[in-house]
Structures are given as structure tokens and as C-alpha cells.
């Protein structure tokens, strides 16, 4: 018996090691070839380390320098997008928190069904949900028609900032991301030990005090995760501004898109894209540990 175990042990683990390599070789090859390599190539390209077009310059930091220190319009656009994404993230978390709270702590049996009701729109076409707002806020859309009908505005004189403004972009982005954000907030509140709330009550804390001193701090990981999950995709957004933003709602992502598809200045585009990636990676390094909590909890 002892002999078999001794023989079996190392043999099995070697087989397992080869098995693990076999399991991972395909997926890793795919990711390296089609994910790591392209992103790395663009990083190299942004420094001119590789050339694609005859017009591309040699290795230089000029494009990065121009972008970071040259007071380029792109840096201004970046900060404008940061401000817009931050606003959207805050609004979305403020909207989703009461819903998560209600579902996790007040609605008892039907909470998962009700949660699905909130999340379901997120699973439908993104373009379609943006399009819906274009229809609602258009010159002859729901809002303007209603205003004409109520004689609050003369027909043919639509509210100017309703469509093609920063406001519209932020409204639509908030609409798009609310369902997604309800999930991590709900998860953190649902995992909360109810007896802690009862204990706080027994110790004389009122409901507000319990909320501020117990519930809110304990749901902080969910709130942080929610915040990051909205901020990261919206900072690189270019589709929504293109559809409902007009020139006022033009964002950093639109600049990248235009450099690659219209301006054909791929090197500057690469600098902008890599900067965006760096920002997102930095955010994940700062907030990553709270985001992890969510995937463990889910």
C-alpha cells in the first residue's frame, strides 16, 4: 500500500501538471496573440518604436510630450470627460443605493425577481436604449410634444439643450448604467448580517444612526465597486456622445475614435488610447481590492 502511494503520488502530479498546461495553452495562446500582443503593439507604436505607415516618425517621445505637456486640446477633453463620468457615477450610485437597500433589506421573498426587473434592461441592446432617448428628447419627441400640447412652448421651438448637449450625454449614460450598478450595491447589502442592525437598535441607536454608523460603512465595498464599474466604461465612451451629444457632448473617446477613423493620425490616437488605458489600470490598482470583494460575494 505504502509503496503504491509513494509511486502514485509524484506520477499523478506530473500528469496533472501536463494536464494543466494542456487546459491553459489554448486560452492563453488566444489571449496573448489577440489581446496582450495588440495592446503591447499599440503601446510601442505610440512611442514610434514600430512603424506602420511611411509617414510614421521614428522612436520619439514627441507625441506623448505634446499630449501631456503641450496644453493640447486632448488634455482638456480628457478632464471634461473625467468630470462628466464622475457626475454620472455619483448620480448612478445615488439612484441605485436606495433600490439596493430596499431590495436587500425590505423586500423579503421576491427580492431576486425584483432585482432581475432592474437588471433586465441592461441585457437589452445598448444602441437601442440610447436611440430611445434620441426619440424622447428630439424636436418632435415626447418631451417637446408635451410642452407644445400644454402650450408651455410654441410649436416649432423645441428646448435647445434637451438633445445634443452634455446634459443629454450624462442623462443617457446614467440611464444605461443604473441597472448594472444596482447589482454590487444589492450584493453588499444582502450579505449584511441583519443582527448587527438589531444590535445597534438594542444599544440605543435610532434608524438613521444605525444606517450612518453601521449599514453605510459596511456597504462601502459595494458602493466602491459600483462606482468603478460605471466610471471605467463611461470615461472611454464614444458611442453615446456621437448619438446624442452633438459638439457640446464630444468626449475624449470621440477624439480617439476620430483620430483612428477620420483624422488617420494613428500615432496620436495610440498615445490617447494608451493614456486612457493607464488611467483605468491605475484606478483598478487603487480600487481593485474592493472590486474583488464583489466577485467573491456574487
Amino acid at each position, binding site marked *: 500500500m505504502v509503496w503504491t502511494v509513494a509511486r502514485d503520488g509524484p506520477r499523478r502530479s506530473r500528469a*496533472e*501538471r501536463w494536464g*494543466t498546461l494542456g*487546459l*491553459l495553452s*489554448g*486560452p*492563453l495562446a*488566444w*489571449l496573448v496573440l*489577440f*489581446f496582450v500582443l495588440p*495592446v503591447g*503593439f*499599440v503601446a510601442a507604436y505610440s512611442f514610434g518604436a*514600430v512603424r*506602420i505607415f511611411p509617414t510614421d516618425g521614428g522612436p520619439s517621445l514627441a507625441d506623448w510630450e505634446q499630449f501631456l505637456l503641450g496644453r493640447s486640446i486632448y488634455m482638456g477633453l480628457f478632464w471634461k470627460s473625467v468630470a462628466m463620468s464622475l457626475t454620472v457615477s455619483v448620480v448612478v450610485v445615488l439612484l441605485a443605493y436606495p*433600490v439596493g*437597500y*430596499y431590495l436587500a*433589506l*425590505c423586500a423579503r421573498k421576491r427580492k431576486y425577481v425584483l432585482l432581475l*426587473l*432592474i437588471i*433586465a*434592461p441592461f441585457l*437589452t*441592446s445598448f*444602441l*437601442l*436604449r440610447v*436611440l*430611445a432617448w434620441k*426619440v*424622447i428628447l*428630439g424636436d418632435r*419627441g*415626447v418631451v417637446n*410634444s408635451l410642452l407644445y400640447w400644454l402650450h408651455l412652448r410654441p410649436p416649432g421651438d423645441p428646448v435647445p439643450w434637451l438633445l445634443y448637449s452634455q446634459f443629454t450625454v450624462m442623462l443617457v449614460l446614467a*440611464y444605461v448604467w443604473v441597472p448594472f450598478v444596482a447589482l454590487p450595491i444589492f450584493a453588499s447589502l444582502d450579505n449584511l448580517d*441583519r443582527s448587527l*442592525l438589531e444590535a445597534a437598535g438594542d444599544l440605543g441607536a435610532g434608524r438613521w444612526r*444605525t444606517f450612518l454608523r453601521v*449599514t453605510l460603512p459596511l456597504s462601502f465595498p459595494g458602493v466602491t465597486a459600483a462606482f468603478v464599474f460605471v466610471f*471605467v466604461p463611461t*470615461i*472611454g465612451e*464614444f*458611442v453615446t456622445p456621437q*448619438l446624442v451629444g452633438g459638439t457640446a457632448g464630444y468626449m475624449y473617446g470621440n477624439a*480617439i*475614435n476620430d483620430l*483612428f*477613423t477620420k483624422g488617420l493620425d494613428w500615432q496620436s490616437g*495610440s498615445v490617447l*488610447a494608451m493614456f*486612457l*488605458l493607464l488611467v*483605468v489600470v491605475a484606478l483598478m490598482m487603487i480600487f481593485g481590492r474592493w472590486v474583488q470583494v464583489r*466577485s467573491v460575494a456574487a
Partner: protein
Amino acid sequence: MRTADDPAASTGARRLLALFFLGLVLFLYAPIAVLAVFSFNDGDVAFPLQGFTLHWYRDALTNAVLLGALRRSVVVATASSLIAVALGVLVATALVRRRFAGKPIVSALVFSPLVVPYLVFGVSLLVIFTAVDKVLTETMGMYIGLGLHAVVVGHVVVSLPYTVLTIMPLLERLSRSLDEAARDLGADAWQTFRRVTVPLLMPAIVSSFLIAFTLSFDEYAIASFLSGTQPTWPVYLFAQLRVPSLLPQLVAVSSIVLVASVILVVSAEVGRRVAERRYGAPTPA
């Protein structure tokens, strides 16, 4: 049922929260409903409504260019989600069942597409495809070009984290002893995997396929850079939004797609929950 001194919320606060919940549900569904109403409107997409019609649906279903774009998206979504599920099963098995050095690095790599902006990833693939084609034309006089294959390649990368995340929980719940029993009864590793592990994982495999499929079918950013002259449905939809006369048709098709995708995803989710419950609590590994 509830005591008056519920520590989470007073009766009044609970009512207020319920009202807020209702308001948010309205906010979420009203725009979609408005769009659906217009797909039956006998006129253009603007108020006032003109009357009921089905002819936008008829027009859409006979529009060859539109149907072509839909077909392309079905092809891309099917191919990319099949590959993503296959790779996802392999990754999930390695992450759940194996111990190996570098596991944190592997899982970081697999899940990183979740946080890389699609815009950045899309242009990266565009640049590398262009660069490779440049080299190929200069050395061998041939090129790969952009198109559906390029979109599939990108969609597999962004779907993979979702398939892995869907398959891992069920794999954690499946008892290892089933695999061991199969091995003891003489099955080799491949037979065990094919005849025992995969059938037991089927509910998670199906729902991860549906999630990957919906993701790919709806994906615009990556496809817009890579589809070249073969627009997928979202790329076509986006391009046509500038043509007002086509809008009612697009709204009609979108409504069909929307209803179909909701049914797909909800049934996938319900199926997965049922399956996970049937297998019971997670077994210690």
C-alpha cells in the same frame, strides 16, 4: 409579519423606498416602451401618433441589406461564443480544479478584458491587423484584411471572462468524487472530461453560451473598427440611424431583437439557478 421596530426601515421609510423603486422601474422601462409604441405607429418616429400599423415590421423583414446585417451578427455571435465557451470551460477547470504556480497571473489575464475599454481594445486589434497585413503584402503579396473573422477574434476575448465567471461557480459545487469515481472505473482523463464533467456542467455551459451570444450580438465598439466592409447588426444600425426614413423599420427590428434577447437571458439565468440549486451546496475541494 414584520415588527414595528424593524431596524432597517420604519414603515414610512419602507413605503418611500418602495415608491422610489417603482419610480426607477418606470424610468428604466418607459423609454423602451415608447420605442416599442413607435414601431406600430403609422408615421415617422415623432409625435403625434398616427395610428396602428404593422407595415414597418413587413418592410424590415423584406429589407435584404438589414437581414444581411442580422445574419452576419448571428454568425459572429455563434462562432465567437462557441469558442469563448470552449476556452472558458478549459480556463474554469484549470482555475477551480488545479493547483499551479502563476494562478493569480492567469486569472488576472483572463479577467482583464472586463476593465480594458472596448475602444482601446478595438483600435489595438485594428492596428495589429493593419500592421500584419502590411508585412504580409510586402513579403508575400497577400493580406488577411478586416471582416467578420476579426470581429470574432475580438469578441472571444471580451466574452471569455463572462463564460469563465458563469462556469466556475457550478464547477465549484460539483463534487470531485464523481470525476474520481470515473477514473477508478477505468476512464482516462479525456473520457472523464467528455462523459462526466461536461454533461454535469451543461447548464452552466448553455447559460454562458447565451450570455456570450447576447454580448457579441449587441457589441458595437469593437465591431465598428474591425468589421470592414461586412457590417454586423449594431454597426449597420448605427450607420443607418442618420437616415430618418429607415428609423421606423430599425425600431421595429430592434423591438424583436430586444424581446428575443430578454427571453434568452432570463431563461438562461433561471436555468442556471435551478441547476445550481439541484446540485446543492458547494462541496469542499
